[in-house]
């Protein structure tokens, strides 16, 4: 623990990791051009990817990455919440359960048995769940990984006391704004863009790929109608189910659609 100057009036920022790959918190370090200015505007009190120096809470803003997959983490998040004035979850793991949320669809221990030689040494929960299933969350920033510009926008908005300018609409709006030709209409490429939250800037369709749904369901995602169209374009239920079961598999809207598609039984 380091000493804090009593005269330092900067708001404090803490970054916490739960079950995750670290990619989202690294987005903070990716803010290269703005990092020094940001470090001047906030005091980074706890961020183990950046510094071993850590100061005790409470913290003005906590960024929480990762999902809850162990009994220990289910306890630890309670303390993070108690120590944080604002708690912002970042990324698909923290907001939806992440790719590890696939365990929620499998028999207990199925994945652990495949990955680990001695899964009996593990002490994990049966499910991978978002932070909001455990504590109150002040703001959720979606994406796998999150977009660093959006992260910066959320931090600046919290510092300025204004609403973050982060869209809840579909990827299509960003895609069309980039003058992309729709890969679904022009090429029958399976694409989750119409039901996925914007934020990536339409990254995959810009290189001719369908959207993978990294940012999770958009505000008014009609997955049933999209899945019907993907089927008309020739996709099997298994394929459509797999499309919805990636980084945001456990997001309720995507989860329901993948289960509906799995039940079609036309693999």
């Amino acid at each position, binding site marked *: 623990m380091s000493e804090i100057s009593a005269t330092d009036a900067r708001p404090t920022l803490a970054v916490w990791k739960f079950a995750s790959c670290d990619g989202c918190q690294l987005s903070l370090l990716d803010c290269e051009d*703005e990092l020094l*200015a*940001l470090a*001047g*505007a906030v005091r980074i009190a706890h961020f183990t990817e950046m510094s071993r120096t850590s100061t005790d809470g409470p913290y003005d803003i906590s960024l929480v990455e990762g999902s809850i997959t162990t009994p220990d983490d289910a306890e630890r998040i309670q303390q993070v919440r108690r120590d944080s004035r604002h708690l912002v979850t970042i990324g698909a793991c923290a907001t939806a359960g992440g790719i590890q949320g696939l365990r929620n669809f499998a028999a207990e221990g199925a994945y652990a048995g495949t990955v680990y030689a001695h899964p009996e040494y593990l002490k994990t929960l049966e499910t991978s769940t978002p932070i909001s299933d455990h504590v109150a969350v002040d703001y959720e920033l979606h994406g796998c990984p999150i977009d660093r510009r959006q992260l*910066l*926008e959320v931090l*600046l*908005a919290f510092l*300025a006391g*204004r609403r973050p*300018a982060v*869209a*809840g*609409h*579909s990827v*299509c*709006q960003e895609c*069309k*704004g*980039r*003058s*992309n*030709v*729709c890969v*679904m*209409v*022009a*090429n*029958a490429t399976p*694409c989750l*863009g*119409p*039901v996925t939250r914007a934020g990536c800037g339409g990254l995959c369709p810009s290189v*001719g790929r369908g959207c993978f749904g990294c940012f999770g369901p*958009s*505000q*008014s*995602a*009609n997955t*049933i*109608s*999209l899945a*019907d*169209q993907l089927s008309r374009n020739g996709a099997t239920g298994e394929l459509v189910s797999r499309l919805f079961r990636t980084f945001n598999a456990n997001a309720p809207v995507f989860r329901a659609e993948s289960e509906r598609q799995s039940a079609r039984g036309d693999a």
Partner: protein
Amino acid sequence: MSLHDRSGLGPNLDVEDLVVIRPDQLNDLIARLGDLGYETKGPTIGDGAIVPGAVRGTSDLPVGARDAQSPGRYRLEYSDDGHLFEWAVGARSWKAEFFAPRERQWRAVIVDGTLRFTEPTKSARPLAIIGARPCEVAAISVLDEVLMNGACPDTGYDARREGLFVVVAECTAPGGTCFCASMGSGPSAGPGFDLALLELDDADGHRFVVRVGTARGAEVMAGVSSTSATDADVAARAQALDRSINRMHRHLQTEGLAALLARSMESPRWDQIAERCLSCGNCTLVCPTCFCSDFRDTTDVSGAVERTRTWSSCFDLDHSYLHGGPVRASTSSRYRQWMSHKLSTWWDQFDTSGCVGCGRCITWCPVGIDITEEAAAIRGDDEAARAVHVEEEAR
């Protein structure tokens, strides 16, 4: 000089004159517009579709391209006939040229305790579009009323709109989702163009009948060698346009449509559409007249403030967000807002239709919702309901 050679006689061209040019001379026309200082753009091939792009000669145009369009589906095919305009309408309209998807309005910084505002500089180079479709020219006129002549002019729209030179390519190959004939915006060009081309390729060869739309168009044509249109050319042009109308199988019955939609706010059809509608906003984004935008103020780490205008969509929940939540929370209410604005309340607001019949909202809807089919269904429901009402009255 042959009997019909108009080279050197250009200055005598008048509005509504018809002349004929060959593909080489179309190339000359494009080059001349470039020489006159225009940035020349037109339809090009990109990402498997016809899209706006830089055009410096006829080889940049969609040579031999054919488009197959149906609800939710678009494919390009190619022929070796060298035709330049044997397709219907491209993936994107010309809207983005005047009304950018994203545009900074101003930036403000604090210098010595005072706010200093800066606005982005506007490009001064005028634009010439070669090969816009009649429906697209009609759409620009519709947008003019909203963004240039309306109550709230858009910063920047008229700067880019001013000086626009339009060479329209009249339609001989309407697509599977076109219905401009119903909307009175094609397949022949209405007002708003400088020169109109109609492509012909028959016993008299591959050529373009050019109709002069403005004095400025006549001046530009004066520098391009052409021949007077013969009676055969004029007849072939008229036949091609007739054939075009006959080949357009999609229709929108516009008679009484504005009033019909105004009294159909409670139609059960809206909920049926909402079952299919993705609320993704694609129809509004490809629409050549949809103009909704969003203004966002953001701060940066240095303390500077920026205001940005971005395209928005009535399908975005945030678009109707007022305190407490969105006004149009359901997809059915948002689709109803879009369609009834396009075909009904646009008349109240701007004294014109908001739809020009280009069919993009049908083709580029990922699930193929068809505005003409939905309007017909609402009309059918309305007529059935009125028939019941008449029956009840009679009893």
